[in-house]
């Protein structure tokens, strides 16, 4: 099993946290399939099941040493969604079971139930994704996919969004700093901030587009697709137990998704 524990390695991807936990040492494909299994479970479980999945996922993240980061991201992402869905489905969407709450305010228990189901389902899927990206370095995913004979183009397609998060985020900060240093006020009213958006977004998008071209040229000049498969010198270690674990998780994921379809 491999692990990235050096401080430098953590600087190349925004969400990855170096560590030596079981998931850090696991082969990236095992972590990837574990994530897919959790997502497939979240897709079919009832609300109570997805809630348990979230709690278990968060507990697992703490056991793996990435708990604070996973929890923070989960809360930041899910809280606005939770509020929006509860308000829309519980109070606004017209349903036959509306019950008076306070004064003219009415709510729908089935609407709230539906909102909870959607939120916990998305929350469980997000928890699984966060555990994966905080414990698995994108570079290791690339190596692992290359080792398995996946074509370089497909590997790059899977891993590049994760590899790009950090430079993209750094650039966004640099653009914000550059515009603030030219007198752009990002601290006042919502209207002023909204008006400031073009000054922040246009350079970010322009640079991202020019980066795409640049990256494509670099990859081509390095004969990225010259060989159908790439040889990996320092592939992440794998073992028979993990191979079998992955097979079991794949079968479980398929069964989880398939059985409810067959039963309906």
């Amino acid at each position, binding site marked *: 099993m491999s692990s990235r524990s050096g401080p430098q390695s953590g600087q190349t991807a925004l969400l990855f946290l170096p560590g030596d936990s079981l998931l850090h040492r696991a082969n990236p494909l095992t972590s990837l399939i574990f994530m897919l299994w959790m997502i497939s479970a979240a897709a079919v479980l009832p609300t109570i099941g997805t809630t348990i999945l979230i709690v278990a996922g968060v507990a697992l993240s703490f056991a793996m040493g990435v708990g604070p980061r996973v929890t923070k991201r989960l809360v930041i992402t899910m809280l606005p969604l939770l509020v929006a869905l509860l308000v829309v489905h519980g109070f606004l969407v017209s349903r036959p079971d509306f019950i008076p709450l306070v004064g003219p305010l009415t709510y729908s228990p089935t609407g709230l139930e539906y909102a909870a189901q959607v939120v916990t389902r998305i929350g469980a899927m997000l928890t699984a994704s966060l555990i994966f990206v905080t414990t698995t370095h994108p570079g290791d995913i690339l190596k692992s996919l290359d080792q398995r004979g996946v074509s370089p183009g497909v590997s790059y397609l899977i891993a590049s969004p994760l590899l790009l998060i950090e430079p993209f985020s750094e650039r966004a900060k640099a653009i914000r*700093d*550059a515009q*603030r*240093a*030219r007198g*752009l006020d*990002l*601290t006042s009213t919502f209207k002023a901030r909204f008006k400031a958006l073009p000054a922040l977004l246009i*350079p970010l998008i322009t640079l991202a587009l*020019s980066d795409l071209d640049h990256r494509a040229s670099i990859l081509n000049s390095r004969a990225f697709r010259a060989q159908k498969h790439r040889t990996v010198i320092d592939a992440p270690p794998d073992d028979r137990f993990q191979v079998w674990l992955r097979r079991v998780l794949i079968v479980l994921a398929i069964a989880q998704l398939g059985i409810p379809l067959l039963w309906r």
Partner: protein
Amino acid sequence: MLDVASVDFAYPGGNPVLSDIAFSVRRGEVLAIVGRNGAGKSTLLRLLNGLRQPASGTVTVDGLNTADTPVHVLAHHIGTVFQAPEQQIFNAKVHDEIAFGPRQQGLTGAALEARIAEVLGRIGLADAAQLHPLDLDAAARRLVALGSVLAMKPPVLLLDEPQRGLDANAMARLEAIVAEEAEAGTCVILVCHDMDFVARRASRVLALAQGRIAADLPTLDFFTSDELTRKAGVEVPDPVELARFLGLPPVLTPSALAAKWLADHRSA
């Protein structure tokens, strides 16, 4: 004009980046901040324009404490040209890009147009006013970035690696602008790796080594000290080396070297 008093800085959870930094810069002075990569030059620049706050100590710009003044307000007193001009360009015309800063200051109408025309003339892009900045070459884009800051007429000008990516013409224009700004009383601070440029334009050198001030001297005194240039990890400009080799008094520029050599030969 700019005063840095006993400043320490560290990024959250990191080791100290800057320790016990103290210096002042007067009106009309051109200060070059030099040092190896990682010496803390760019961090110091961000402390000066208020993008970072010191852990201890104070930075005062034009009478304003950076800790108490929002960055967008400080920007009227201290203009910064960053290393990558693409990070700030967003308007579809060079004219509008130059106008961005003065507009933030509330300048409008004829006064704004006069300011833009003046700056376009200074950066040599009067004919390119209606072009898209990203259609210009890299050197011209850098000049647009410089122009957009000059248009705000800040009393303190920070230039982060201003010579990077400039061709000979653009470099000559940059040097002329630095000289004009200093002449007009602007306090110019350069963060720079090009020691020939520093030798030609800076009146004083602040050398950083491992987050501390290794030297704060007039340019000639700095470059004639082997110990200090070695400590700061910078190359000594060719005219200084050549003057030493020829046994002439120290000089900073090729023209000064030629003058000394001629004077020496005539007297001989």
